[in-house]
């Protein structure tokens, strides 16, 4: 049986948090899609709240604690990522961005990502497309077309209320992510931290003589 591994990042600060609730829904929908295609998928769910001190320490010292390093390794080597943040003051939360800031800029190149966000009202839903999406595009991740924003009110709207109700959006986004995860080999790649750039010469490459 084919296996894949996805990572789920939840940057909600309250416990329980609606951000985690959305993250879990997105993860389950993705798993169901993959299972339907005969792909067994494991999930690593990361609550960034639990890592807040480690992330801050990494920003200050330049290195990750062993615990954070292990999690960064799991996230960056996954076949897919579901990244969900609350929207604070028009953008992703500071903790969410801090976690992204401690990743190596090349580490998530090609990683399929489903972006999600939560907020008190629908007014901030575009933050997914003006903040979250460019962030992951900059890092050369592959962001699926559908981002899922859940305002408080969405949790009380049924699937039959309209074509764009939360459960429908979750299903559509999960389908897009599952399609990419299915073809990913990222979790099986052995990475060489000492790979030298192509053409590197220890005596120089500019015709110095």
């Amino acid at each position, binding site marked *: 049986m084919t296996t894949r591994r996805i990572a789920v990042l939840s940057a909600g600060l309250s416990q329980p948090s609606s951000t985690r609730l959305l993250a879990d829904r997105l993860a389950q929908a993705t798993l169901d899609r993959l299972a339907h295609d005969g792909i067994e998928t494991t999930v690593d769910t990361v609550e960034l709240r639990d890592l807040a001190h480690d992330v801050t320490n990494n920003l200050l010292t330049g*290195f990750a604690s062993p615990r954070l390093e292990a999690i960064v390794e799991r996230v960056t080597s996954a076949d897919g990522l579901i990244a969900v943040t609350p929207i604070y003051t028009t953008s992703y939360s500071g903790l969410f961005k801090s976690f992204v800031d401690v990743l190596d800029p090349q580490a998530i190149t090609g990683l399929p990502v489903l972006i999600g966000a939560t907020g008190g009202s629908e007014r901030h839903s575009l933050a997914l497309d003006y903040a979250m999406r460019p962030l992951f595009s900059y890092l050369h991740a592959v962001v699926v077309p559908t981002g899922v924003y859940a305002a408080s009110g969405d949790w009380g709207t049924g699937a039959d209320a309209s074509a764009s109700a939360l459960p429908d959006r979750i299903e559509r986004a999960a389908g897009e992510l599952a399609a990419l995860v299915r073809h990913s080999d990222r979790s099986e790649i052995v990475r060489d931290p000492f790979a030298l750039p192509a053409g*590197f010469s*220890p005596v120089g490459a*500019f015709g*110095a003589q």
Partner: protein
Amino acid sequence: MQFGIFTVGDVTTDPTNGSTPTEHQRIKNILTIAQKVEEVGMDVFALGEHHNPPFIPSSPTTMLGYIAAKTEKLLLSTATTLITTNDPVKIAEDYAMLQHVADGRVDLMMGRGNTGPVYPWFGKDIREGIPLAIENYALLQRLWKEDVVDWSGKFRTPLQGFTSTPRPLDGVAPFVWHGSIRTPEIAEQAAFYGDGFFANNIFWPKEHYMRLIGYYRQRFEHYGHGTASQAIVGLGGQAFMRKNSQDAVNEFRPYFDNAPVYGHGPTLEEFAEQTPLTVGSPQQVIDRYASMREYFGDYQRQLFLMDHAGLPLTTVLEQIDILGEEVVPVLRKEFAKNRPADVPAGPTHESLVAARDASLLAADLIKAEVK
């Protein structure tokens, strides 16, 4: 095995009393510290190079030249010399001169420097850091090894018929270490030339440096300079000691908590667990550092950072006393135990001259046989 002290030369406020040394005091303090290193029987003093406050060592050979005159046996080194923003011609001249002044007691450690604005201040671009380090160093080696150099490259004015003076002492260039925290290209460069590789070992967990040094050792062997276990490895380290370990912790904590590099971040306990920083009794420092060879293999040089974060001069001198009297003698014995005979000692001018003479002799013998 060589033991010593390295300093970045920061001017930092003492967080326990708010006092800040003047640049003049700090410069004089560093000169005093260097002489203390020799007095307590350690081997090496290495000075950083910086071109921005709060650091003072912008002109390392001036300070090392003074220390050379005040010491007899101490090996003078750098940590690091900026191979990216300095003109390699000036490095060749300055350190060959220092080599003569100090009767050969000189080596250098190359580094790229990670302060963004220093590059443009010296007309360079930090994004070219690695190509600069590679090209400038290739030129530096030619300037020391060849009497007359014709050269052209990407980053400096071409040279036609240039002779770097003075020529290196006894015709042997100073030994060079390359320092890097995370860059395989620099480990590769060190291995290619058969130079030393120094892992600062202060700011990151040792597992990270173990991988980098393992890579350097492998590549050293690949390039035919000897076996991987014969590669020339140096490590940094950091300690603060008092007879009772709790006294050491209490005294060092305010300096740790407010240190420019890692202050206000992890706790002292976390940092001491995750990096080689050891705060406690001399015996704890001995135990921690005696174990380094188990992780990095038998190595050649161990330097300690002792004088940063605003620690007062008297405290630093006490620390060096403890290090020299109680810690290093035991570590020397520990490191000598079961050390394979074919693992080289720390490089010196004398060992380089002997190696050069031996290879000349071998070449003569081959020639004679051919005849």
